[in-house]
């Protein structure tokens, strides 16, 4: 079977590669937006609990209640019909997945900032450290260590969620695999090849998240 899988990868490499590039492009947008806007949203939600924090809460509840597939379909069909516009499926998918990622990242950031023991900062203050030093040498390293494993795990999930984009006709790797299957009908081999693609990308990320978690999130609780 492995021979057939390799054979399919070689024979359809151009199609698979273009699908992979679309998937990675989608992923890059989703990851970047989460990293930039999610972090900012989380910080503001922590600082302005009454306003931005409330908006984040509402968005989190809403998104947790709507399956990603329904959100994608709703943004792709009804919303565009209501607005009377036609938007590329790739952009719709990027928007929907970015929204989910931004809210997810913001929640991680807000929760960790809310739970940060302020006494660590006070200890720095009474030692004569400046606000800048307290942030760069105490707050940021502690928060970073707590954020990064959860953040990476979410990003792996977001990569996997890009598969749903195929359902609104985005020519990402899953849709390409479906298309190849419709021509040669070898589902076991084709979806094995697809699994290999995802393993090749997700496995290193998962290992990195695990490694960072074991390296940085030591048990801070005191014996």
């Amino acid at each position, binding site marked *: 079977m492995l021979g057939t899988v390799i054979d399919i990868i070689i024979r359809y490499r151009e199609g698979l590669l273009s699908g992979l590039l679309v998937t990675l492009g989608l992923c890059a947008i989703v990851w970047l937006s989460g990293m930039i806007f999610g972090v900012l949203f989380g910080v503001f939600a922590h600082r302005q609990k009454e306003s931005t924090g409330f908006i984040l809460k509402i968005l989190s509840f809403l998104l947790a209640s709507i399956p990603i597939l329904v959100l994608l379909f709703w943004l792709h069909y009804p919303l565009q019909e209501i607005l009377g516009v036609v938007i590329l499926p790739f952009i719709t998918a990027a928007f929907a997945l970015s929204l989910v990622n931004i809210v997810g990242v913001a929640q991680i950031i807000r929760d960790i900032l809310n739970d940060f*023991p302020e*006494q*660590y900062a*006070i*200890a*720095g*203050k*009474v*030692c*004569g*450290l400046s606000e800048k*030093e307290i942030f760069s*040498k*105490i707050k940021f*390293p*502690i928060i970073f*260590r707590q954020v990064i494993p959860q953040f990476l795990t979410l990003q792996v999930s977001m990569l996997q969620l890009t598969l749903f984009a195929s359902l609104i006709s985005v020519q990402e790797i899953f849709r390409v695999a479906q298309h190849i299957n419709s021509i040669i009908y070898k589902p076991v081999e084709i979806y094995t090849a697809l699994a290999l693609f995802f393993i090749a990308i997700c496995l290193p990320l998962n290992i990195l998240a695990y490694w960072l978690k074991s390296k*940085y999130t*030591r*048990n*801070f*609780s*005191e*014996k």
Partner: protein
Amino acid sequence: MLLAKDITKKIDGREILKGVSLSLEGGEIISVIGPSGSGKTTLLRAISLIDSPNSGFLAIGENNYRFPIQQTENLKLPYPNLTVVFQQLFIWPHLTIRENISLPLRGKIDTKYFDEVVGLFQMDPFLDRYPNEVSIGQRQRAAFARALLLKPKYLLLDEVTSALDIEQSYLILSHLKRIAEKGVGIIFVSHVLHFASKISDKVIFLDEGKIVEEGTSDILTNPKTERLKKFISISQQVI
């Protein structure tokens, strides 16, 4: 000199400190004792400016503060001339003990003094371990060392022996005398009367946010007020 005059502090509308005054000279040790909720920790946080008092006056060395502070911009904070060791210690968890005590020095380490302090608290065996890998007694010593390496003029200690056994408490408190001999003024909040009587030049008994009685450690053997008598009596019964 550290001088606090008529310090009041309200938390959630409740007056926790009701006009407390005290003065601390360099080399002097003051013990603040009192029941739970009497305002001991609040007093320490107020005079260290962690939580600014609502009213009163504070002089820390050459810095004067009148409360409520009208303009917080350009406010000159007294740290690390005045520093605090907390009950919960707050040793930074992502740094080793060595990094914890060195960080506030910003690389300007007086190696001789560093070694002296490390030796004083017998910290060599655990200097390169992380806080969660050492015992609470070792963390306690690290918190002290971190404060001492800053060469403060005033050292405020909040129930620092509460989590320690008698032997460890004795070790820490025996060092306090030596620290004070170097000219450091120390305010020591504690509920352990025995230690307060052993090491203090002055004892302040705080109850319901007010100083009920103060004087030398003799007040612990010959209290004048009924409230202190009762407190000592209850403390002795518990021991």
